[in-house]
């Protein structure tokens, strides 16, 4: 079966949803603002004759209608990075600041790590972890091309990530951009729909719960954890949040994203989830002509002022 059918009860306009899922997505690049401003990238594209279109909700993104995001001079200079539009959302939700300690739990191939480092102005420490050593080499290549000097790369299973190799034992912020069923990327990679199985959904949901729980544990009281996927499956989204709300000291918080989204769902196939999962954002392809996405922001519980190192950074 086509897994997209099972999400039809969740969407407002089934025909538009299915039509959007069938349309290919354009190549998109994000500007690495550590290296160049969007205006400078536009000037370089103009000089080189690279066609580009702005993205109305983010001035650091350009759609490249002719594709080939890596075949131009701004890319060579590390001024741009090929990254799907919706993929910048978790970095915006995370909102990392210069000087902070940030964990990117499932980091390869590094689009979000590099966006995080850029937002931190390359100051502080971003720990980019992935359990797949092969994909880490792509991450390292991307981080170096973009000129990032504040990243540490680790190769661990995020579910039982140890901070022992680090100079600190808790993070200010953590991003869990989890491995998932990826139907939201069907406009870029139609094979994901053919390869989809419900067994995989259930298996990967267990992994997601383990990683998100560890991220909450590894983040200081009052800190921020962002959870994101590119699947529409509530089993991998709201159900994961619901599980971690029960198991760990945290809450889901309201936040804004700069495009049209709908709230998380509280009921799915006989299951019900905590009301606060409605604060999560679902991004459907037909609402903004993007890929599909899911993003939630959590605040880690506990007394913020009780953190040991609170005065160190003052």
């Amino acid at each position, binding site marked *: 079966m086509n897994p997209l059918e099972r999400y039809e009860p969740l969407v407002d306009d089934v025909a538009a949803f299915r039509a959007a899922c069938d349309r290919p997505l354009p190549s998109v690049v994000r500007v690495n603002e550590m290296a160049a401003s969007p205006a400078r990238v536009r000037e370089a594209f103009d000089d080189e004759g690279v066609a580009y279109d702005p993205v109305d909700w983010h001035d650091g993104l350009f759609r490249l209608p002719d594709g080939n995001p890596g075949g131009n001079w701004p890319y060579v200079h590390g001024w741009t990075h090929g990254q799907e539009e919706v993929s910048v959302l978790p970095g915006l939700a995370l909102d990392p600041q210069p000087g902070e300690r940030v964990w990117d739990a499932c980091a390869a191939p590094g689009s979000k790590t590099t966006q995080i480092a850029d937002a931190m102005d390359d100051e502080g420490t971003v720990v980019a972890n992935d359990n797949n050593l092969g994909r880490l080499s792509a991450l390292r290549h991307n981080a170096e091309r973009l000129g990032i000097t504040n990243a540490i790369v680790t190769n661990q299973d995020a579910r039982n990530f140890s901070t022992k*190799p680090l100079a600190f034992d808790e993070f200010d912020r953590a991003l869990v951009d989890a491995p998932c069923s990826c139907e939201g990327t069907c406009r870029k990679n139609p094979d994901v729909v053919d390869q989809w199985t419900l067994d995989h959904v259930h298996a990967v949901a267990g992994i997601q719960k383990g990683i998100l729980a560890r991220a909450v544990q590894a983040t200081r009281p009052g800190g921020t954890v962002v959870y994101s996927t590119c699947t529409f499956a509530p089993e991998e989204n709201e159900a994961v949040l619901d599980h971690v709300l029960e198991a760990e000291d945290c809450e889901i918080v309201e936040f804004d994203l700069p495009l049209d989204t709908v709230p998380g769902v509280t009921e799915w196939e006989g299951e019900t989830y905590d009301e606060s999962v409605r604060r999560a954002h679902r991004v459907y392809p037909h609402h903004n002509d993007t890929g599909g996405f899911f993003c939630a922001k959590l605040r880690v519980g506990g007394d913020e002022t009780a953190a040991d190192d609170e005065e160190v950074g003052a």
Partner: protein
Amino acid sequence: MSDDANADGAPTNDGQQFDRLPETPADREVEGRASREEVIDWWEERFGIEPSVFEGYSFWEKGAGKVWIFNGEATDPSEVEAIGMTFLRTRQEHWKPTTRAATRFGDLATKNVIELDPERAVTFMAGDDQDLPEWNGDWGYLIATHEIAGEQEPIGVGLYLYDELRSVVPKGSRADLPIVE
């Protein structure tokens, strides 16, 4: 055989971990390891980059002679996959800056910088060597730049020898690019 110590009991380089460079040659415990002071002096002497540029950074060695630059917090030693970015190849007669060090910090260089015209920049990024007899400066490693969006910007490291500029752009970073006049 353990590589933690040599026959005299002195510490040696361990290729499995990142070790912070000693501050000065006087602080050196591991034979052959560059010091922070030497690294920073080398960038000033070779490329005219002010030592103050590197004040906030730490420098690390993993493997024989590969020096990394890092702008965050880390333990010493660090058993991780990477720490910051590769910066400089030491433990050889002529130290060699990495391509990424050149693109990240090369805009601050004031000497041994070679400005390439649009056609030469394309040749360089393709990884091809080119005759360049008109260069009157030093031989050795140069930072190559070209003009983009109205300013000269670094694109990598070239090795200048015998009237020829050799591109040392790593294979994975070479690109077939258009000439932009």
